């Protein structure tokens, strides 16, 4: 017993399988396949079945063929009987794992079983198709520039429909987006970099805003209180009573507004210079409600993308006007809070 176990242990898996296969083939070669099948089918049943096995049928057919063509009985046919491995359908590969992990190159994989594709990869493909479509349009139509198969591609048609009517700036935008991502859409490192860069830019924008705000408020406050305390007869005061409108000042009161506008011009110019030089304010209005509305609307009306740069510029100018209005607001608030004096 111990010897047999030792021998079994010595046999490898392949050898075991080979032995089993040979034993099975030898059993089948003996014939009586139908009787064995009937024994199996009648086990525990009161009615005995009488069926003929396929193996016996094939044997019978070979025999009949041999009888029909006796001249064809050659050593080869003798080999087929002696080597029953040619009769069974057992594949040569017996390792089930190799079969289980085998991938079938099916043109239409079953629904839900295809390899999940990265969404960024899909977008990249869409962008490429869009740029290809616009490029080919520029070079004399799809038929001229693109592959003939493109004409029948529904996705290309779809993208063409969307990009139609938009000028080159749109395709430039798409190309820029693709170039900016530079295939980075599929790269998580680049995505992380983009996110961090955005956070850094937002911080830089706020930092510049903070610096300018400090300077603006300090200067406006100083300018206001200087005139508030130096102009005599409380003429640089606001009041809840309307008579102040009729008072005539012996000294000119324009000094305040002169300095105010001078400072505003300097501040606005510096702000504009810095925004152009650093470029950190370029993306400031991307999340503005109007810009989002345009992005959404361009899905239905592609012409809207044409006015996008103008809106962006308008918002940038609004920022500059906002600086002046913000400082004017500070002056109004100071006047209002101190209006109880008169």
């Amino acid at each position, binding site marked *: 017993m111990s010897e047999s176990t030792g021998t079994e242990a010595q046999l490898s898996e392949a050898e075991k399988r080979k032995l089993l296969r040979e034993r099975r083939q030898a059993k089948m070669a003996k014939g009586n396949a139908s009787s064995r099948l009937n024994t199996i089918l009648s086990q525990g049943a009161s009615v005995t079945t009488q069926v003929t096995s396929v193996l016996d049928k094939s044997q019978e057919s070979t025999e009949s063929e041999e009888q029909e063509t006796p001249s064809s009985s050659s050593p080869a046919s003798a080999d087929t009987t002696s080597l029953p491995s040619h009769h069974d359908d057992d594949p040569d590969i017996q390792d089930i794992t190799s079969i289980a992990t085998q991938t079938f190159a099916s043109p239409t994989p079953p629904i839900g079983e295809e390899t999940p594709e990265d969404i960024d990869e899909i977008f990249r493909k869409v962008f490429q198709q869009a740029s290809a479509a616009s490029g080919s349009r520029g070079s004399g139509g799809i038929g001229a520039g693109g592959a003939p198969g493109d004409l029948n591609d529904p996705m290309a048609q779809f993208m063409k429909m969307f990009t139609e009517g938009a000028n080159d700036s749109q395709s430039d935008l798409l190309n820029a987006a693709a170039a900016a991502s530079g*295939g*980075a859409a*599929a*790269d*998580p*490192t*680049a995505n992380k*970099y983009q996110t*961090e*860069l955005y*956070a*850094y830019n937002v*911080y830089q924008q*706020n*930092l510049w*805003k*903070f610096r300018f*705000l*400090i300077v603006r*408020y300090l200067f406006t406050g100083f300018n206001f209180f200087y005139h508030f305390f130096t102009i005599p007869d409380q*003429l*640089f*005061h*606001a*009041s*809840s*009573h*309307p008579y*102040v*409108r*009729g*008072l*005539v*000042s012996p000294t*000119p*009161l*324009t000094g*305040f*507004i002169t300095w105010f506008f001078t400072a505003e011009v300097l501040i606005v110019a510096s702000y504009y210079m810095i925004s152009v030089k650093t470029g950190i304010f370029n993306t400031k209005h991307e999340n503005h409600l109007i810009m989002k509305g345009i992005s959404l609307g361009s899905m239905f009306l592609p012409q809207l993308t044409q006015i996008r740069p103008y809106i962006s510029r308008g918002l940038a100018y609004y920022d500059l006007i906002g600086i002046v*209005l*913000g400082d*004017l*607001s*500070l002056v*109004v*608030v100071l*006047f*209002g*809070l101190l*209006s*109880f004096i008169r």
Partner: protein
Amino acid sequence: MAMLTIDFDPYTVVISVFLVLIFKQLISTIGKSTIQEFIWLSYIQLGTRFNLTPNFTQLHLKKQELHEINKQKRSISAQDQYAKWTKLNRKCDSLTKEIQDLNEIISGNKVKINKLTGLVIMVVTTLPLWFFRIFARKTHLFYLSEGVFPWYVERLLAFPFFPSGTIGLTVWMYAVNSVISSIIFILSFPFKHKPSKPIKPTKSEKIVGVKE
């Protein structure tokens, strides 16, 4: 329509609107949900300490009792005095369940507290502004001395229908909002986390990243 206006002291309106807007901006900066959570936690703490409702009194007593039983349970051996220990344990379990039920009842009040907090915030911030918008819309809040601003700035500040050199509620609210938000920004920005400049990934890094 003229009946809808009330003759306010202009400076009262100036100061009231200023304070209400400060309060409103502070609430929006802190966040309504944070305030509601803070009030709920304060309600739990104060309710437990001052026994504001019978539930809090019961909860307090039950917690004390549970504490005592736990102390007794720890003082005896479960093997040597099994009967007593089991009795205490059973009591402990029933008390824990009762405490849980009481906690659930008290937690049910959270919705009420949140609703009440929201209502108070609205009454303190939104309603006064609407009140002033309706009843003080024609009030001349203050007048600027002539010659301080050029006529076009005076006209702008008199928006929408006030005489030149007059400040109305619309402009006053805009100015106050602008100044308060700027001051809050100046005060809060230095405490914000400063992100470091990210390093652009090189091509080789990209390839390695993709291969990985």
